[in-house]
């Protein structure tokens, strides 16, 4: 039994159960939740280190060997995602403990958070395509409740859109899995990688690939099925928005990377061209939506969509460099997006509004907060020497090497618009003073938050900002790991060998 792979699943599940048994005792739940977050980060780090040192880790649930039973597989991509998920959980828990209102905590925020993480980690670690569906549902049901918890009107309306689109995606995913099983006769992903090229009706495989693309596309908010995201993500409290934006759409992208590197590689000329076109449209429409917004959370929600376009672009170009860029970008965008939402949450905590038109003057009053906004914002726009620059640089270079200048043009154009909307927040919320040229009055300073709350609120952002600077200034080791991940994904032999013990 390989405990290293099993522990990241055990920790959030166990934390959730203990939280359930402590129902109605918010103080105890907080402690458990915090310990769970720390535990998940530690076992995630342990998993990542083990995978780096010893290669892909596999365990067979219930001692049923692959391809018959459910296999848990941790390759480099899975391990990186599990570790990052652990870090984001810990940040969210710390932030939620100090900012979340009492009714929501009493109604089981911490329990649901850890059950959602159970689903997320399961989706990252499973080696079985039907099991992936099950993990998706564990994640979705928890996220449904997290999203509408509190029962405000906007939450319920956004919740209906979120639930509907995600349930349609689940039904399509399920249908696709069923047909895939009917055609190929296996559900184990490594086994599928061997058997799919041998299928005679390759047209059916391509159709299935597009069906999977559509199902995962809804979950990861790709063009043209992204509209549930800006309709729902800005409605819950910021702690919920942070963990959603950090992980949920990324699980969709992770699944796309997994199936389009491991299983559907027989007709890349068609499938990956479709991916590339969708990537371009996703990033352009996402950023155009963002430019039009003046509500900070909605603006940032549209940016989630445009960043998803970049992630898909790396997958679509399908070279080691471009996939490495996607992996690097994935980690970078999780950090940058979460930090931006957290800063937005602090501004809301002090002023009670997210409306950029009503904000202003924070640069003068709280320089610390300004710096904490400036770093992730510039990183998202792709300004050197921050992490976003290297991610975009690698994507652009991969696009040029692949002779796809139009996607490079789209990516760079979207970068400029990203820069524009980040400077809009900067100009409106931080630099702007009163209209008549006088200094703005009643701008709250960070000191207006009690000291006991201030540090836990700022700590996650500071850590994320430092990580973004480190990933930018000392990009070499991070990018080397990304390249190694990309090569592992593209070669597939190591994955199949680890799961089934045979050569591809």
């Amino acid at each position, binding site marked *: 039994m390989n405990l290293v792979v099993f522990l990241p699943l055990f920790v959030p599940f166990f934390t959730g159960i203990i939280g*359930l*048994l402590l129902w109605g005792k918010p103080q105890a739940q907080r402690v458990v939740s915090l310990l769970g977050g720390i535990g998940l980060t530690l076992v995630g780090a342990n998993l990542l280190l083990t995978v780096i040192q010893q290669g892909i880790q596999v*365990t067979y649930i*219930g001692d049923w060997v692959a391809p018959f039973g459910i296999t848990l597989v941790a390759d480099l991509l899975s391990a990186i995602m599990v570790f990052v998920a652990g870090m984001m959980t810990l940040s969210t828990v710390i932030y939620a403990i100090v900012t979340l209102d009492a009714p929501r905590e009493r109604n089981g925020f911490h329990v649901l958070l850890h059950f959602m993480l159970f689903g997320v980690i399961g989706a990252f670690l499973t080696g079985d395509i039907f099991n992936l569906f099950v993990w998706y549902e564990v994640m979705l049901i928890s996220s449904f409740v997290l999203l509408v918890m509190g029962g405000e009107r906007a939450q319920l309306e956004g919740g209906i859109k979120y639930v509907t689109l995600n349930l349609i995606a689940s039904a399509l995913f399920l249908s696709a899995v069923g047909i895939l099983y009917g055609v190929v006769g296996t559900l184990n992903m490594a086994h599928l990688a061997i058997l799919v090229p041998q299928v005679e009706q390759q047209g059916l495989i391509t159709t299935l690939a597009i069906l999977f693309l559509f199902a995962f596309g809804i979950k990861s908010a790709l063009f043209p099925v992204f509209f549930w995201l800006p309709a729902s993500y800005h409605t819950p409290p910021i702690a919920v928005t942070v963990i959603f934006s950090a992980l949920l759409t990324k699980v969709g992208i992770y699944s796309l990377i997994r199936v389009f590197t491991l299983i559907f590689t027989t007709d890349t000329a068609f499938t990956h061209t479709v991916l590339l076109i969708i990537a371009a449209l996703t990033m352009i429409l996402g950023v155009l939506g963002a430019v039009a917004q003046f509500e900070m959370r909605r603006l940032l929600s549209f940016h989630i969509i445009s960043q998803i376009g970049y992630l898909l672009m790396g997958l679509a170009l399908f070279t080691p460099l471009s996939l490495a860029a996607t992996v690097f970008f994935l980690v970078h965008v999780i950090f940058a997006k979460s930090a931006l939402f957290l800063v937005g949450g602090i501004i809301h905590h002090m002023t009670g509004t997210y409306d950029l038109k009503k904000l202003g003057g924070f640069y003068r009053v709280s320089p610390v907060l300004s710096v904490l906004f400036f770093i992730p914002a510039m990183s998202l726009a792709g300004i050197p020497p921050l992490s976003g620059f290297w991610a975009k640089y690698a994507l652009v270079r991969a696009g040029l090497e692949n002779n796809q200048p139009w996607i490079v043009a789209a990516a760079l154009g979207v970068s400029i618009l990203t820069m524009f909307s980040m400077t809009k927040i900067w100009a409106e919320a931080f630099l702007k003073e009163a209209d008549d040229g006088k200094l703005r009055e009643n701008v709250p300073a960070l000191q207006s938050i009690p000291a006991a709350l201030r540090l836990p609120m700022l700590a996650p952002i500071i850590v994320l900002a430092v990580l973004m600077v480190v990933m930018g200034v000392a990009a070499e080791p991070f990018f080397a790991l990304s390249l190694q991940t990309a090569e592992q994904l593209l070669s597939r032999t190591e994955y199949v060998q680890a799961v089934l013990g045979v050569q591809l």
Partner: protein
Amino acid sequence: MKRRPASVIFATGARYILPLMLLFAFFILLRGHNEPGGGFIGGLVVACGFALFALAYSVADARQILRVDPIQLIGWGLLLALLSGLLSLLLGLPFMTGLWPDFAIPAIGKVGTPTIFDVAVFLVVIGVVLNVVFSLAES
């Protein structure tokens, strides 16, 4: 029973049907090993029994005779499920490997870790369904 029930016949019937349903659910749970049945369907029958009681009297009454908070039932059920899976780890086998003892208990049969898992499912299903039904009926 503080409140007057809606229908005397329905209310009287519910009092007799509930124990029968509980007994039947237990039978289904134990039958689930080698024949159709099991924890999920058994749990649904139990939940139906209490939902019926809640309809005949009130949710408060149904909660009172259930004695346990449905959320606690979910928690204990999940914990039991986890423990049934962890047991095999002690023997160095992978998580959730089925373990069966050599002896059989009369009238029930062999009780292994999958049986414990089934009981856990039974508890979780009761908890989840009753939680949904009660919260729908109360709001």
